């Protein structure tokens, strides 16, 4: 399988179905694991990294976690290919920009990815469309158990799984949901929601994880604490809070409809209009407008688009996806022109009709 094939499809987490998929884009769990007989990455020599990569590669392949595994040597990839994997959330930015031997194993449906030599020796992540953390936890637990039969993880009797950063020690587990919260942003209630989440030790991040801006009104909500609680309890803590936020977002949407149906309809229609007609458009503006359109589809203000299509557009209009599809390296001016061209083509009605026939 070629990486370029990825640009024709969207991964599991963008399918746009599953429980509460209008607001919860995806559910994700990741586990941080390290091999007991090697130093953590910051002290690992290039030879250590090579050995860690070999041991984990062999163990992952032998544990048969997927019948259709794609194994990629990340350090041998071109920059644009690494960026492509970041845009699809298959590797982190840190992994893409890192140094030395490193790799990722992905199942072809993009339901999980196993990063080798990131901040920890092994980072397992499982993703699923919609709100279903318990199912994701079951899947990742099975993968973790299968690999663990082949290797010895660094584990401390009292502190649990040992990680390079003490913020992950214990379970090594981060449970997160990606939510689309445009109405809370428009009604300026989002800060209030964040403050209350912080009080119960939950973290909020942007679309591409740590340090990234909340582009397109997407927010990742995850646990901060990893030690002293059972995995099930960590899953439950996030699972309990998500319906509350969904409810706030739905109330804010209803408020917008009730108070200013015309304004909201206008905002959504203009956004759709610009996306269908622009000749050059930046990534930021695209995200911003797609966010309005996505809410418009969910509220029935736009009839001829599917949520899955918009989810796909969020990722397919990112820089590396545009460049892989055209097959050329593009500067930002050319990318903006290409992005606008792609959006016009994708959103034009003839094309929409074709896709409808195909489905």
């Amino acid at each position, binding site marked *: 399988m070629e990486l370029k094939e990825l640009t024709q499809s969207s991964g599991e987490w963008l399918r746009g179905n599953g429980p509460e998929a209008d607001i919860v884009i995806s559910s994700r769990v990741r586990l941080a694991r390290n091999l007991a007989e090697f*130093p953590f990455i*910051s002290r690992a020599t290039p030879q250590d990294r090579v050995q860690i990569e070999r041991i984990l590669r062999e163990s992952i392949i032998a544990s048969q976690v997927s019948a259709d595994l794609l194994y990629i040597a990340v350090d041998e990839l071109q920059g644009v290919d690494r960026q492509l994997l970041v845009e699809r959330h298959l590797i982190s930015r840190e992994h893409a920009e890192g140094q030395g031997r490193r790799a990722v194993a992905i199942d072809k449906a993009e339901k999980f990815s196993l990063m080798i030599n990131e901040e920890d020796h092994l980072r397992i992540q499982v993703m699923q469309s919609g709100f279903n953390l318990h199912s994701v936890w079951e899947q990742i637990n099975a993968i973790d158990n299968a690999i663990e039969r082949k290797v010895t993880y*660094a584990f401390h009797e009292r502190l649990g799984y040992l990680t390079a950063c003490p913020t992950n*020690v*214990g*379970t090594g587990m981060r449970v997160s949901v990606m939510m689309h919260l445009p109405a809370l942003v428009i009604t300026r209630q989002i800060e209030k929601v964040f403050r209350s989440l*912080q009080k119960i030790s939950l973290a909020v991040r942007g679309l591409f994880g740590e340090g990234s801006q909340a582009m397109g009104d997407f927010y990742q909500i995850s646990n901060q604490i990893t*030690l*002293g*609680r059972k995995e099930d309890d960590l899953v439950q803590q996030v699972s309990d809070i998500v319906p509350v936020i969904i409810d706030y977002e739905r109330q804010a949407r209803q408020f917008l409809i009730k108070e200013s149906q015309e304004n909201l309809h206008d905002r959504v229609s203009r956004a759709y209009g610009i996306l269908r007609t622009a000749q050059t458009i930046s990534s930021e503006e695209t995200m911003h407008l797609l966010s309005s359109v996505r809410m418009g589809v969910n509220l029935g203000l736009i009839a001829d688009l599917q949520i899955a299509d918009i989810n796909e557009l969020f990722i397919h209009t990112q820089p590396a996806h545009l460049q892989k599809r055209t097959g050329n390296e593009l500067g930002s001016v050319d990318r903006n022109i290409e992005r606008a061209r792609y959006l016009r083509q994708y959103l034009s009605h003839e094309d929409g009709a074709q896709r409808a026939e195909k489905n």
Partner: protein
Amino acid sequence: MKCQQCERPATFHITELTGGKPQELHLCEDHARTYLTSSSGGEPTGAGGMAAALAQQVQQMAIGQTAEELARLDQQACPVCGITFYEFRSQGRLGCPHDYVAFQPQLEPLIMNVHGELEHVGKRPHCTPGSSEKRTQLIRMRREMKESVENEKYERATELRDQIRRIETDQAS
């Protein structure tokens, strides 16, 4: 050292681990308080746990301890991977699994601040490692081998290489 934001001496040395790369901050008490209460330095995430914990820890260590004692704690090194506690503070990443044992007195208050607990209650590996001693020994020997090569002590390096191979094949069988 002066505070990065005013002329007063810096008494708080904060390592910010949230977001991108770790960042070192040297602040006076007032500016440290402002920094730590302002949702962790402008990050929209509000993940101030680790920074606050490290700052509080330095403060705790400062009570009843002289500058020399603080410096001594900072200079303490892990016998397995060789990282000093100071290096951990400035990078925000530990060097090897044994650090959790070697720096236990320094790390425990920090872990307590971040997680509010010190005991893991979640899942455990099905087969717990027979002797963790042997595993950290491997880390130590690989480091010594590298140093021997660097110091041109090739005989010692060869010896170590053979010992490492023996342990590795023992484990595999």
